[in-house]
């Protein structure tokens, strides 16, 4: 219980610090604040999808029920954070560039991830039989994961980007005010712990449900 409370205080401090402590970035004005929420959410989404794929690969090796369930849990969480990141990004895009959506390379990539994991969860609901569902879903997860990197090469040929540059630029130099960096890293850590906490909770619930079914 202690560390959940700690996480609550931590995240509250991040929110307050994002608005009061961190200075504004050049050219971004008040929209700077999105850095502390949007990027960590996108990061957690990618992390969750990665975890999901790792568990899918593990499932095909171990064939253990738990690996499949954890792959599904992580995919659901990833989808949730990806939707939040997409929505917050779209609001930022409206404020910054005047349109909610313009197929920016990063918008395209996150949209593709939404499609893939939406399809993954749809497939899970369309297959009867626990083992078969686990097998087919794991295969789909892996093949989808393999094709995503190709977007990195092709999308810049199609659309040019307005998205603010990555945190680390080509020279490997951070272009962030130290205070901004503090809040940003604190938020990144907070969101990551939040993800693992929800993941662990869902995994516990799944195990309890299973136990209950076996008992009845």
């Amino acid at each position: 219980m202690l560390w959940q409370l700690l996480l609550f205080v931590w995240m509250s401090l991040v929110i307050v610090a994002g608005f009061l402590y961190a200075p504004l970035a050049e050219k971004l004005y008040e929209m700077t604040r999105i850095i502390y929420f949007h990027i960590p959410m996108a990061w957690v989404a990618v992390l969750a999808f990665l975890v999901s794929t790792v568990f899918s690969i593990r499932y095909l090796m171990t064939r253990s029920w738990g690996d499949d369930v954890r792959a599904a849990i992580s995919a659901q969480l990833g989808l949730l954070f990806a939707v939040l990141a997409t929505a917050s990004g779209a609001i930022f895009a409206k404020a910054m560039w005047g349109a909610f959506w313009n197929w920016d390379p990063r918008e395209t990539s996150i949209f593709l991830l939404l499609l893939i994991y939406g399809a993954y969860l749809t497939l899970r609901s369309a297959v009867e039989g626990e083992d078969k569902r686990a097998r087919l879903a794991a295969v789909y997860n892996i093949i989808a994961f393999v094709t995503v990197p190709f977007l990195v090469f092709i999308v810049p040929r199609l659309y040019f980007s307005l998205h603010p540059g990555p945190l680390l630029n080509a020279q490997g130099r951070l272009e962030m005010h130290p205070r901004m960096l503090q809040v940003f890293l604190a938020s990144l850590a907070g969101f990551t712990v939040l993800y693992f906490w929800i993941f662990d909770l869902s995994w516990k619930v799944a195990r309890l449900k299973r136990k209950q079914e076996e008992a009845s």
Partner: protein
Amino acid sequence: MPWLEGVLAVFLKDWRSEFRTRYALNAALLFAVTTLVVVSFAIGAFGISGDLLAAFLWVIILFSSMAGLGQVFIKEVESRTFTALRLVARPSEVWAGKFFFNLVLLLGLEVIIIPLFFILLNPRVGDWSGFLAVLILGSVGLAGATTLIAAIIAQAKGKGALLAGLSYPILIPLLAAATSGTRHLFHGDGGAGQEIQILAAYAVVVIAAAFLLFEFVWSE
């Protein structure tokens, strides 16, 4: 039985059963031709830029392939030969045989719709070898990804709708590369060299991954 013979046996079996009914080919061809005519009719007498023509071409190919390429595995389930095939052939033979069948089906479809596309919509192409490379490499990647997804959805409920829903997310990088390459060729500005590389890499990666993963889809 050596591996190649097994692959050939699966391919010929599908070939023969397809030509008894011609279901997959007819469905895909009918879809492709009607879509092509509808597009051409909707454009009417107005000229249309190479940008849009390239997009149309690949959308037509993608949608027609969804109408036909799923049949290879769906028909095994519908005619209840799934288990029998599982007993007589190794998974890699089944996958390779079905993949080649789908590839031949797709290329056969393109032999008919590409000339029709050029007759009806009249795009200009300077570099024919580049165009053929984009078309063939795109088809190889498309057939590779779709064959694996077809094996997955054959074992699920709501097969028809699911094939497109599961395939498109995986095919978007391919579609993007193929469209971009075709657009450059229709425009005549620069070549499609980079896109051809991406399409080749995509085909290799998808086929290798499908080859490794198919066993898990096929065997209990």
